[in-house]
Each structure stands twice: as C-alpha cells, then as structure tokens.
C-alpha cells in the first residue's frame, strides 16, 4: 500500500460518491446524527401534547399547517405519525447507521489493519441506498394523510388500511434493509479476509467481534422483514391479503374487496423475527465501543475477554429464538409462552456475563475520567437498568399488567437511549481525534455529559411508575383514563426532562463543528491506546497505513509488567516494548 500512488480523485469521487471506507463512514455518521436529531425533535413535539393535551403549542404551533395542527393544537393522526416516525427514524436511520455504518465502517478496517473494506463499491452503494431510504421517509411527511401512523411496528390490518404514508414507509424500509444487507456482507468478508498478519481471531479488538456478530444478525434477520415488507406492499397496492382475514368491517363498511384468508399474526411473527435480533444490532456494537473505551481508560486488559466473545456469539444465536416474547398477549397458550419465556431468561445470562466482565474490568484499574470514559461508565448502570427491567416483561404473568404500558417504553429506552446513545457519544469523543486530527473540547464535553446524564434519567425514570400505574403507551391523551390522569404529573416531568435534554445537546453540537477547525491538534495516538487504528496517521490517508502493520499480541495489553510504557501496542515487537526509551 505504501508503494501505491493514488492519483488525486475529483471532488465528487472523493467526498460524494467515494469508495473510501473512511469517507463513507463520515457520510454515514453525519447523515445518521442528523436523523438522530430529527427523531429527537419529533419526540419533543409529542411531549408537548402528552404534557399539555389539547393545548396550543407555543411559538411553533402554527408552522405545521392545518392538516397536522389546526390552530396550533396537535391532531391525533399527526401524533401517531410522529410516534411511528420517531421509532423508525431513531432505529433504522439513526442508531443502526451510526453504530454499523459510521463506527463500523470507519473504525473496523483500521482496527484489523486493512487498507479499506473488501468491497468498496458495495460499501458506497450501501450508503446511497440508505440515503434514498432516508429521503423517502422524510418525503412521506408531505404526502396526503401525512407519514406512516401505525406505529414503527406497523401491525396490519391497521397498516394495510392506513393512509398513503404507509406505502412510502414500506418503500423506505425496503431501501434501508437492502442497505443493511449490503453492508453486512461486506463486513463479514472484510473481517474474515482482510486481517493483517498476526491478527488472529482472538487478537481482534472486542469491537470488531461485536461488528462481526452484528453483521451476521443483519444478514440473517433482515431478509424476513424485507419479504414481509413486500407482502404488506402487495396487500396495499395489489389487492392481496397476506395479512387480512375475511369479513373485516371498517367504520361500518364490509370490506368486500378483501379476499381474506390472511393472518394479522403472520406479520407480527415476521416483524419480530427481525426486530428482536435488531435489538442486539442496537446493543452489541455499543458494547463494543464501551469495551474499547473502558480498556483504554482503565489502563488494564479487559477482564474475561474470551468469555465476552463467547457470550456475544451465544447472544447472537439466542436472539433468533426469543422473538415471540413481544407477543405474549396475542393469545398464546402455556406451552409456547413457556418456551419463549425460557429462551428470554436464558438470553439474559450472556448479557449479564458481558456487563459483569466490563464492571470487573474496572477493578484494580487506574481509571482516567476522560469524556469518552464518562459516557462509557454511565452506559453501564443505564444498560443495567434497561436489562433488569426486561425481567418482569419477560415473565409472561408479570407482562400481563406491564405489556404495552410505559414500563416497556422506559425499559427499551434505557437500553437504547442512555445505553446505546451514550455509547455512541463515547465513541464520538474517543475516535473524533482519529477522524479529524483534533480533540473535542473536554470542558464542553463534561457539560454535555453531566446535563445529558441528569436529564435523560428525568425523561425515562418516571415511565416505570407510569407503567406500573397501568398507563398504556401510544396514547394521544392519557388523562381520559383515571389511572392515567392520576400520574399526569410524571408525564409533565418527563416532557420537561426531554426539552432540557435537547438544550443539553447544544454544547455537543457546538463542540462537534468548532473543534473540527479549532480543536487541539493531536498525534496519531492521543489516548495511548493499543489497537491498530492508533498506528495510522490522524486523519488516516487513503489506504490508511504508511506501512502494512504486523500484529504481535492481543488487543488490550495495558500496564504489562516490565514494559517501558503502560501500553503495548499490537504492532510493536516485544523487544521494542520492553526497551527503556
């Protein structure tokens, strides 16, 4: 690679239709962060209606038009659109593209010493198909009837009879799934084939392992949803009835055009067969980021590195046989519910093992409280709360009361918001100097962290009490119920937490853009880390490494007795590590 002479590509080939994994990673990162912010804005709008149902939204109430918010008051259909699109955008356009498309794309090839992904053009295609999916989703807000409003789960028959936005949603989903499929093939081949000499599977950073398992999940779980999406499109456009039974009477009108014979539950099975592994797509790369940051900032090897890898593989397998725990209330008998409840309890074990390993890794470390480390540390208790609250939901009998309540919302948001999104922030603060050659400002970083940590708990903690009280999710106005009215104060608290959380992101946004130009310049390895991405220049040039590295040891050789520094990089020979400099 060092001998290759790359002629300077045109601006468009370099920054728009680039095949360089780093440029694609940054494209993914910027696009997905924008979507993450958009999804968050949708939620902040919903929180107004929830906290002050039926009241005119101040300042911005009039800009959404008469079809969505007549007189500045949100209509139920617009609320439902916001809910469905918040979920879709956050998961499929925000978090997954960030974890896999951005971090995976940028960091993974560097960590395995590769000059690029195995299939650079496939990589470019993956991004642009994702981009089209995103454009389709955004455009759907402007079609008659608004964006999809049947929830991110899109259960038929509701979604089959929904407004045109649902058709756009399905087209968008087909694009997004295709993009993930292209990406996953590329990741698997790259990790298997392009590791440098000496980098055996058990010398891979945990982050790479997490990406590998995630790619298998994407590869195996997404096709059923793609098929299901096409079937639902056919139901809507071609008059089929895969998900429609006969004899439906909608608004008093017998639906004679429906031939019937379909099953609404079939969709749920296909959907959750994807969407449960999807949960692990959302969490495994996050655990990968956290593991990297923790090893680096405790200055000691990860505790139980191999156990973590085996647990991750086991998680990957198990995640395919737990999906029906989302469907306990669909009329399931004792045997089937017992099966899925058992697999659900079993899958909690490897998660506990990974979390335990990460916490024990702190023991006897020398913990540096850098900004990425604070986010990574905060991830641990937040993920623990998210995981623990999954327990009553996984027990079918307890789920009777808690199913489809705010308890569920609190549970999965603790996993994904203060969990995964904190891991994403950890990753951004950690690898930003690699991508830009400059540090993010740590004072702004500390402010961002502390306020985010406080407010995100104010947003989600009250939801457990609301769920206990029996308040259903997806309610436009919970005060119509006595049990909802009684805990309305918690909704108000949650809403203020959300708006303040929005404000808490301002230091980050400023930091993110200003530091690109004004941040402190750094060397190749500002964190004194051991993995290969820190060998490459910051930012790495096209082709990544000046010379092809050779790997001599495992990924987390920190504080090795007898070494001259407290970190022994993977690419440095043992003699060079121990020689006193």
């Amino acid at each position, binding site marked *: 690679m060092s001998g290759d002479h790359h002629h300077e590509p045109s601006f468009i080939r370099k920054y728009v239709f680039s095949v360089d994994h780093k440029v694609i990673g940054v494209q993914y990162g910027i696009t997905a962060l924008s979507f993450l912010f958009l999804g968050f804005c949708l939620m902040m709008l919903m929180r107004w209606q929830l906290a002050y149902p039926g009241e005119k939204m101040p300042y911005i109430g009039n800009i959404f038009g008469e079809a969505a918010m007549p007189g500045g008051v949100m209509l139920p259909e617009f609320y439902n659109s916001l809910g469905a699109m918040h979920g879709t955008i956050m998961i499929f356009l925000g978090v997954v593209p960030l974890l896999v498309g951005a971090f995976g794309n940028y960091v993974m090839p560097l960590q395995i010493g590769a000059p690029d992904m195995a299939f650079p053009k496939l990589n470019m295609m993956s991004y642009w198909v994702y981009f089209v999916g995103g454009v389709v989703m955004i455009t759907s807000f402007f079609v008659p009837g608004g964006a999809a409003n049947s929830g991110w789960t899109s259960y038929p028959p509701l979604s089959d*009879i929904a407004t045109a936005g649902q058709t756009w949603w399905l087209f968008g989903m087909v694009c997004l799934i295709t993009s993930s499929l292209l990406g996953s093939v590329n990741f698997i081949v790259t990790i298997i084939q392009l590791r440098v000499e000496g980098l055996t599977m058990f010398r891979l950073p945990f982050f790479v392992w997490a990406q590998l398992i995630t790619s298998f999940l994407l590869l195996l779980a997404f096709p059923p949803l793609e098929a299901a999406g096409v079937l639902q499109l056919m139901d809507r456009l071609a008059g089929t009835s895969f998900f429609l039974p006969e004899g439906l009477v909608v608004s008093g009108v017998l639906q004679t055009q429906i031939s019937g014979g379909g099953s609404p539950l079939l969709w749920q099975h296909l959907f959750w067969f994807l969407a449960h592994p999807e949960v692990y797509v959302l969490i495994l790369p996050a655990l990968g980021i956290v593991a990297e940051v923790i090893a680096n900032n405790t*200055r000691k090897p990860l505790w139980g590195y191999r156990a973590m890898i085996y647990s991750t593989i086991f998680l990957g397998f198990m995640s395919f046989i737990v999906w029906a725990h989302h469907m306990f*209330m669909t009329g399931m008998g004792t045997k089937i519910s017992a099966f899925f409840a058992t697999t659900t309890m079993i899958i909690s074990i490897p998660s506990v093992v990974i979390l335990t390993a990460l916490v*024990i890794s702190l023991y006897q470390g*020398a*913990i540096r409280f850098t900004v990425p480390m604070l986010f990574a540390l905060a991830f641990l208790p937040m993920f623990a709360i998210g995981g623990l609250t999954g327990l009553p939901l996984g*027990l079918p009998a307890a789920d009777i009361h808690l199913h489809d309540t705010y308890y569920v919302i609190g549970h999965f948001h603790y996993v994904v918001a203060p969990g995964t999104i904190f891991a994403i922030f950890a990753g951004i603060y950690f690898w930003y100097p690699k991508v830009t050659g400059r540090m993010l400002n740590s004072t702004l970083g500390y402010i961002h962290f502390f306020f985010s940590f406080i407010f995100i708990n104010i947003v989600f903690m009250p939801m457990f009490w609301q769920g206990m*009280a029996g308040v259903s999710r997806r309610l436009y106005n919970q005060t119509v*119920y006595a049990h909802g009215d009684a805990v309305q104060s918690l909704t108000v608290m949650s809403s203020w*937490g959300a708006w303040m959380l929005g404000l808490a992101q301002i230091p980050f946004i400023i930091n993110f853009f200003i530091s690109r130009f004004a941040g402190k310049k750094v060397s190749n390895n500002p964190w004194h880390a051991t993995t290969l991405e820190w060998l490459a220049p910051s930012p790495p040039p096209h082709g990544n490494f000046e010379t092809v590295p050779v790997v001599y040891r495992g990924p987390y050789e920190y504080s090795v007795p007898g070494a001259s520094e407290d970190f022994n990089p993977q690419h440095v020979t043992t003699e060079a590590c121990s020689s006193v400099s």
Partner: protein
Amino acid sequence: MNRSRIIGIAAALLVGVCLIAPSIVLGQTEAPAVSGNAIDGDYGYGLPPMVSKDGQRVDDLIIIVHWFMSALFMGWAIFFVYCLMRFRARAGHKAAYDPIKAKVSKYSEIGVAAFEAFLLIGLSMPIWAATKSEPPPETEATHVRVVAEQFQWNFHYPGADGKFGKTAADLVDTVDNPLGLDPNDPAAEDDVYATELHLPVNKPVICDLTSKDVIHSFSLTVMRVKQDVIPGMRIPVWFTPVKEGRYEVACAQLCGNNHYSMRAEMVIEDDASFATWLEEVGIVEEFDEDELD
C-alpha cells in the same frame, strides 16, 4: 481538572433539582376532569387498585421481581461506585495487569440464573396456566362477547336462553345492528347489546374477544387482565371480579387515530342489580327492533 469536575457535578445536580421541583408542582395543578362517571378506587404512582381473584398473584410476582432487581442493582452499583473511587487514576497508583481470580462473579451469575428459573417456573408459569389455559366451567360463568371496533367496545350478552345469536359480518350496521346479529336466528331474540360492561361480582366471567376491523387490546387494568383482540380470531379471557364499583376498559394496542379515546366503563355489581340492568338494556334493544318494523 478535578475541581472543574466537582463544579460540574454540583451544577448538574442543582439544575436537576430545580427542574424536578417545578415539574412536579406544575403537574399537580388541576388536570382536565375524567369524562363521564366517577371511577372507583385510588389511583396513584404505584400499582392501581386490584379487584379480581387472581390479580393478586400477578401483583405479587411483579413485587418480588422488583425486590430482586433492586437487590441486584444495589449490590452491583455499590461495587461499581467503589471501583470508581478506589481505582481512579492518581499519582503513584498503577493498574494491575493480571486479572483477578475471584469466583464471586461466577457464583452470582449462577445465583441470578437460578432465581430467574424459580421466577419463571415457580411463579410465572402457574399463573399463566391458571389465567390463560384453565377456563372456569361455562355453566358457572357469566359469558360475554366483546366485539372491538375503531374506537368503541361492544358487549354482547346471550340473554335468558344462555345462547348467543348468530352473527355475520355482512349484517353489521353501525346504527341498527352493530353486532351483525342474524334476525332469523331464534337464539338472537333475547340477546342484549350494550356499550357498558356490566358484570356480577364474585362470579367467574368469560369474555370472548373478537374484532371487526384492526387489532385492539382488551385491557382491564384493575382486573390485571390484558389480551389482544385480533380480527379473524376468537380469543377467550376469564377472571373473577371481587369488588363492586365502576371501573374502566381500555384499549392497549394502537388501533388508529382515536385509539386513546377507545374507552368503556365496567360496572361490577351484585346479582340483583346485574339482572335488573340486563332487563332494562334488553327492553331498550327490543324497543329499537319494534321501531324498525
């Protein structure tokens, strides 16, 4: 850097408190009154009132699980905070390279797994079997058909003969025949239609759930009963109300624009009041039919 961190924590805590206090106060201000009749029971931050025979078992399970979760989290959090303080980077402190050989994690993981197995096999499965697989004898139970539609609950009682009349989708008329009852079926003659769910106290109830249009979820929070209502399927649920009063029926599955307003009321009353009510509602129904002729 250390001082700035402490200032950061203090400032963040201060802002957090400043925020929580007014939101709670604001939230306590008078919310719009619940529509319709007064609902019985004290509702607040904990579990809502519970008025069914088997509901206590669900509550007990929820409470036990939460004690278990709290204990795990506290133990874990203490270790976590201890590590953060004890092993912070400082002058003269070095990280240890060799992993600790503690067996604690292994035993605690085995303990967690064992307790989860107990929760599942010992507590959850028997409750599920009782509430989902072992219906009460039909002869002893009050039988109601619950027909869900966007955004209303319909209740169908079999009347004195104890038999539900035949229904058909093509006979449904939102005003005159919301259930789609077959007028030529003699069993349909004494059937009762209502939009309020009345049930006698201390007697098992079997509800047969069907939906006309989309998926709904029949949620009786105070009974600890919840069951999706799926078009094309007939799904029974059963429970035994044990306390008289007026309660709510909610839809717990997003069913369209006005999902939030898909609410009905449920009245648990003594046998005599239930019989009187059935008669009154039945008369109204017959009157409507006469008028039609």
